[in-house]
């Protein structure tokens, strides 16, 4: 059973639809009583860093998520802003992130981009794996993934970098530390490559 954390992020339904089509059991919830039993978590995300962190505070599930991820080591996959909030902080706002992966979120420096358009980094781009990972099984690298963002995650430890992508600089487009995974691109909007990521996450041994 995959638990999609339902805190109001729009891309949750597209992720749910993929699991539905794969006939993999899933649930959408923000109810602490249901969440505390979760075996695998997905943290969707679209939009602003601070707005997202505030949503967890308002729902009163921030501490519970910490407990699940840090103490119970429940695997969790964050997408887009859902990845960025895995870090400690962001240049986009003042709120504190979860800090499960050491790093901070920075804005792309447009001085380093040679050709227009500059920002956002929008559209299909390729992802170069930097480490072996079960999550990349059956991925066709050259088919790429869909990106839509102006901020990127800067890992403190290079060991946490799962894959990188070029956009003016080489940035971390996928990260992993222990049971915590983050993807800057939108697998739910990346056709078959994205479907494979969600299937692989479901197959990950707990």
């Amino acid at each position, binding site marked *: 059973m995959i638990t999609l954390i339902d805190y*109001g*992020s*729009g*891309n*949750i*339904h*597209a992720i*749910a*639809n*993929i699991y539905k089509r794969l006939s993999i059991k899933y649930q959408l919830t923000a109810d602490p009583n249901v969440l505390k039993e979760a075996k695998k978590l997905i943290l969707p995300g*679209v*939009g*602003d860093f601070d707005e997202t962190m505030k949503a967890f505070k308002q729902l009163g599930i921030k501490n519970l998520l910490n407990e699940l991820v840090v103490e119970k080591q429940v695997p969790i996959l964050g997408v887009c802003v859902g990845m960025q909030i895995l870090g400690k902080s962001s240049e986009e706002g003042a709120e504190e992130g979860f800090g499960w992966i050491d790093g901070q979120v920075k804005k792309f420096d*447009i001085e380093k981009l040679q*050709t*227009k*358009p*500059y*920002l*956002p980094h*929008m*559209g*299909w781009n390729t992802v170069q794996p930097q480490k072996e990972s079960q999550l990349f099984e059956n991925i066709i690298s050259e*088919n790429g993934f*869909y990106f*839509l*963002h*102006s901020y990127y995650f800067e890992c403190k430890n290079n060991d946490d970098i799962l894959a990188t992508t070029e956009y003016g600089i080489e940035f971390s487009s996928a990260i992993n530390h222990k049971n915590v995974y983050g993807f800057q691109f*939108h697998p*739910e*909007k*990346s*056709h*078959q490559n*994205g*479907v494979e990521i969600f299937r692989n996450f479901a197959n990950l041994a707990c």
Partner: protein
Amino acid sequence: MVRDKGLIKTVKFKDSKYLGDPLNAVKIFNEKEVDELIVLDIDASAENREPNFTLIKNLASECRMPLCYGGGVKTVEHAKKIISLGAEKVAISSAIIESPQLITEIAQAVGSQSVVVVIDVKRTGFLKKQEVFILNGKKSTGLNPVDFAKKVESLGAGEIIIQSIDYDGLMTGYDLDLIGKIREAVTIPISALGGAGTIEDITELIHKFGVIGASAGSLFVFKGKYKAVLINYPSRIEKNQILSTYINK
């Protein structure tokens, strides 16, 4: 383009032809692995209607590619709701002529990256001057498209779709002159719409401007000279060929 819940295609914003059910079309576009979908309810603003939120929710959950939705977006609440229903981007057009600050407000609420301004352009008058039109091409604003593009960028738009009403449905190629002027004027991503009739038209656009959105309606829904309705899309190999003309330049 959507009208009365049906998918349609126009010529010069007129003579709309019914293509089928939008959700069915999305399922086919999923199979074709389309890069991105733009759905515009073309009558919503002209008829002063709200966006059709049920349709948006159904489209967004069905789409396995990014979705941009526009039509009838007049408030920050509309935009927030569209994003919360699962669209990646919200397109605005008519409403920002009267209230340009709406761009800034929506950008603050959902992030610049999700704010797309559609600029419809038509040649008008004795001098065939290009002007920005709104309300489905019915009303002239008197605004110059280049100045307007600069303005919407400064207000926080994340992307511009530049649509040529004169070229709509003609399938004779993009208005490269217009697109070139807009590309020069702004730094945000732009997408060209109106006129694409062949894969060569897209190749030419990309060859000329590099990273640019190449959008098309007729090209992807019609087949043959009698314009039989048949949804089609370049394969991955064809797409790579299109892109290689730029990369190898």
